[in-house]
Each structure stands twice: as C-alpha cells, then as structure tokens.
C-alpha cells in the first residue's frame, strides 16, 4: 500500500506533506510533476461526507476569479475519495499571524478589513449567481504578506432564486445567530462574520481605534440581521469613511504621560522623551496639560530657550506650556504629541495611542505599588510603565503587579540632554523594537512569571 507521500494523484501530483485537517477532509501539499508547481489537494473520503460537499466546493470555486480566492484546478474522484486540487497558498492563518505578530498597526488593520470586504463584495455581487460564504473564521483566512486569501468553500453555496439550498454548519464563534436557529442564510450572515473577524483583529491593534470603528463593528455584529449593514458595500463604505477621518490622526500619534505621585518625574520624562524622539528623526512636540507650570518655571532659568508663537524651543525640545481656553495652539502637526498630564492616576486619556505611566521613588513610598495595582483596566491595554527613581527589584514588582511592560528609566539629571540610553528608549517607543537593554530583560522576566 502506498504511503500518502508516495501517492501520485492521476499520475500528475505527488503528495508531499499534510497541511491541515478539516471536518470534511484533509488538505495536503502536492507537487505537479510536469509543471513543477505546488498545489493544495483536499482529499474528502466518500464515507465521511456526502458527495454534495466536494462537488459543491468545486462548483463554487471554479466560477471564481479574485486575488483573494484560490484558483481551483481539478476535481478527481475514485472509489474511496474525492480530490479537490486548488492553488497552494503560502502563508499562515489569521489566528497564527496575529499570535506571532502580537500586535498590528492601525493601517494594517484597515488594510485587512478592506481586503476582506472586497472579497465578500465580489462573492455577493457575482452574476448571475451570488455566493454566500457562511464559514468565515480566522483559520479560513490566510495571510500572505499583507494580502489575505479566503480558503475552504465547503459550506458556501450559490444563492438561488427559490432560496438557498444550503445545509449550514459553519462555526459557533463567528457565525450569525440566525444560522444556529436554522433560518435561511442571507448576505447578512456573512456581514455578521466579517464584523466578528474585525472585532477579533481589533484586539491586536497596537493603538486605540476610534469610536467610529467600534460603532461599525457593533452594527455589523448586531443580533438582528435587519440591524446590520444591508450590504458589504455599505460596510466597506463606512470603513473607508472611518479610515479617512483618522488618516490625519494616524500621521500624529499621541503619547500620554501620567505620573503616580508628585515628584516621580512625569514632566522630566515627558521632556526627555520629546528631546530623544526629535533627536532620532521623529517630529515630537510637548504639550503641558497640568497646572504645575513646570515648563515656564524651567525655561525662566534657561537663557538658551527661545520662544516663538507660544512654543518654547531648546535644542531638540519643542513644547507648549499650559494655556487657558483663550489661546489656540496648533495640534494638527504631524508627528508625535507627548502630552504631560501630570499626576492624575485615575485619569484615562481616551484618545492616546500610548500611555506611559511613571511610577517609582524611594522604597518607603510604598503607595506607588498600591496605585499600580489599582490602575483602571481600560488603561492597561495601551500602557507601559516607566519605573523612575527606583531600582530593578521595584521595577520587577511593578511589572508583576500591573501586567504591563516596564522600562527602568536610567538616572538622568538633565531632561533636555540626549544620550545613548535615551535613544534606546525613544527607539523602543517609536518603533517598538531595537536594543532596549534592560527593558528586554525585564520583559523576559515578566513573561516567565506569567508562564508559571
């Protein structure tokens, strides 16, 4: 008896390895002997599923031509199995992709949503017979670079004039609720699933999504089909508009700096950060949003500070002190806005892309530990702790208590000065990577703690 690896399908394909196992069959990687190209071969045992499935998927796929949908090449059968030969897609499932990435940018989030909508718009508007997919889930979305491909059309079928002749199986987590109650599938079912996928991806975005996006997701995943978007086109248009509204904001990131108690170094770190970001080529501006008047007091003692149009400049630093409501300062400049909120640990800056929570101090200032522990949950997803004026042990304690990444800030006397350590800090914040020295070590320690 031949092993699967030696098996040659129709004298043309050699099975190489198993790619995955589904409910109705197994997918193998195969090589076309003559063309020397790879294919995905889905082998569906005749006994495991009715013939309808294999033929249905083949019939659906062979009519489709879209960059997001694999091409079908062949449908073979013998006394034991059906063999569906499709385009081999190299990539990883959306689930694995997000797991490996840990976080994705807002731009990538929008790009993936747009591509998904484009595929479904194509399916739902096919002429003369639109198609419902009905089994959307992260495992059926393959990410190839920054392009997604939709696989496994075994549950999908054509929408016919007399109703949809479909036996829906789908999946519980991402399928529309009306399907579970046995109602006739409609395009609203796919819209629901798209919304669930968007919701799934939104948890991995590295910065806060605008409330508009959350509204779109809520509408798409409404329990009642008639409350959802009527068409995928409507959903896509809403996404496009939401993305347009935030393009300017994407160009401008906001980092909120909040301190746990007076004197912990909030303003010092915020000023240092601005200087460091500008020094590494970013465009950063400091905005004072607390009533300490620290910036004005500091610049009074620094003759080298220049003021122009209400903004103070000193070396790599640029920043605005707090002004009253009668003064309008420009906030539309592209780049990074570092907003110094001072010591307001209960304050949640809703629109900030990143939140730096500064804590630390001498060991007898134990209230910091309590403050870290009691941080609002809404902060934690976007928050990084900056352990200042304390030792490594305290920093580790903060990491354990907060569940957030912690950066042990080096000893620093002049916030307007720039050096290698601040460069590492700024690069880590700006690019999310790079040699962050002590931060990496702490992060690894934190991860090990979680795994215990």
């Amino acid at each position: 008896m031949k092993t699967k690896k030696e098996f040659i399908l129709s004298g043309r394909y050699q099975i190489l390895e198993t790619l995955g196992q589904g409910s109705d069959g197994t997918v193998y990687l195969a090589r076309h002997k003559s063309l020397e190209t790879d294919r995905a071969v889905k082998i569906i045992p005749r006994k495991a599923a009715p013939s309808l499935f294999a033929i249905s998927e083949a019939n659906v796929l062979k009519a489709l031509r879209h960059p997001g949908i694999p091409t079908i090449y062949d449908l073979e059968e013998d006394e034991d199995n059906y063999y569906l030969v499709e385009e081999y897609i190299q990539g990883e499932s959306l689930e694995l992709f997000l797991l490996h990435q840990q976080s994705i940018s807002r731009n990538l989030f929008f790009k993936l949503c747009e591509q998904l909508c484009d595929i479904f718009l194509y399916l739902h508007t096919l002429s003369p017979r639109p198609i419902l997919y009905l089994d959307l889930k992260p495992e059926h979305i393959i990410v190839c670079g920054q392009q997604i491909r939709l696989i496994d059309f075994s549950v999908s079928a054509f929408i016919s004039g007399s109703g949809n002749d479909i036996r829906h199986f789908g999946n519980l987590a991402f399928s529309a609720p009306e399907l579970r109650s046995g109602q006739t599938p409609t395009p609203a079912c796919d819209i629901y699933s798209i919304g669930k996928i968007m919701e799934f991806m939104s948890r991995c975005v590295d910065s806060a999504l605008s409330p508009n996006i959350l509204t779109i997701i809520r509408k798409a995943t409404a329990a009642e089909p008639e409350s959802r978007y009527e068409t995928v086109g409507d959903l896509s248009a809403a996404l496009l508009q939401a993305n347009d509204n935030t393009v300017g904001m994407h160009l401008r990131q906001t980092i909120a700096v909040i301190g746990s108690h007076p004197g912990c170094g909030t303003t010092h770190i915020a000023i240092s950060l601005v200087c460091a970001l500008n020094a590494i080529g970013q465009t950063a501006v400091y905005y004072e949003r607390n009533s300490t008047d620290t910036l004005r007091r500091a610049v009074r003692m620094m003759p080298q500070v220049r003021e122009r149009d209400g903004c103070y400049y000193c070396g790599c630093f640029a920043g605005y002190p707090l002004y009253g409501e009668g003064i309008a300062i420009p906030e539309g400049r592209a780049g990074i806005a570092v907003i110094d909120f001072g010591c307001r640990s209960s304050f949640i800056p809703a629109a900030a892309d990143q939140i730096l929570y500064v804590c630390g101090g001498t060991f007898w200032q134990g209230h910091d530990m309590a403050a870290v522990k009691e941080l609002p949950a809404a902060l934690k997803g976007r928050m990084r702790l900056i352990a200042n004026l304390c030792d490594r042990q305290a920093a580790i304690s903060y990491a354990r208590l907060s569940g957030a990444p912690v950066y042990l800030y080096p000893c620093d006397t002049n916030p307007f000065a720039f050096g290698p350590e601040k460069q590492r800090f700024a690069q880590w914040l700006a690019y999310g990577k790079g040699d962050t020295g002590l931060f990496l070590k702490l992060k690894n320690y934190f991860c090990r703690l979680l795994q215990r």
Partner: protein
Amino acid sequence: MGHCAGATHLCIALANFLCSGFFADTAYLELGGRREISSIARKHSDDDRPFIHQRVVYYPNVTANRLAEVLAGRYRYFVLDFGGQALHMQQAFSECSIRLVIGNICPWKKSQFARSVQKSFYNKKTKEDVVYLGNYMECKSDQREVEKKCGINIIPVPYLPDPFRIASENFGFFEKIMEENELSHE
C-alpha cells in the same frame, strides 16, 4: 480712532491673550457709554453688572465716576476700551501704562485716519508714548504712506477671526505691542 476701527475687537483679544496666555487676572473695561459688550454674556444692554467670560472679567459701560473704583480692583492687567472716546477721557488715557491707538488703514479710510492722527491730542503731546496699530491693511504701501504723512510707526494688526481664542501664531504681535512700551509680563 474713528468708528469700526476694531478697537473693541482688539481689546477683547488682548484681554484673552493676557489672561489665557499668562494666567493673569485681567479685567476689560468698556468706556464711552457704548454698551456693546453685554451681549457677550447674553445680557440686556442696560445691565451694567460685571460678568466673567473665559476668566476675563468684563465691566460694561464704565463711566468716569466708576473708573477709579474699578481700577482699584485686584487685577494684574486692566484693558481699557475707550472706543472713539479717548478725547473725552484724556487724563485716563494718558495714565495708562500702554497706550494703543488703532485705526482703519484700508485704502478708502487711510486718509481719514491720517487726518485724525495729525489733529489728535496725543500726537501733539505724547506722540512717542503711543503705539499706533493699523487694521484692515491691504498693502504695505498704505501703511508707509500714513507713517510718512504722520511721522509715526504703525504696527499692522494681524487677522484675528476670534478675539476669544487667540491663535498662538499671533503671539508675536501681542508681545511686540507690549514690548513697545517695555511692559514686562513676567
């Protein structure tokens, strides 16, 4: 100087600049019996009670009798809007730390402004102590013409669409008119 030169608009802008820019207690005094600013607080024009807007305290319709009383208040800055009535309150005007004269120097008004400056009391006596501001200027040549005719220097007033919200790009203008009279605001 003259009607609709923009004196009230500028005074309100200056008051908000001082108050919001430096968190200084600032009062705006409306002189000359015009009774225009009460509408800011949506008050009836007969209501002369002071009101607060964006932390600036506004005193509508301050008469010569009440002026001393108001000026005794504990404010860091008093912005006195004489309107076109400085001639009738010469002493009060002369006693101000900064004296600003604003005129309309658009092409069809600049001649009238020039004549007014030449005839004014402050031109004869305290010319060097007055800062002249030119509003609605269309081109530099109009400014230079008036300067030459009157023997004065004119600072153009920038476009200030909202006197209650001063764009930081206009800080330079306000700082300049303050420096002209060497008034420190620190």
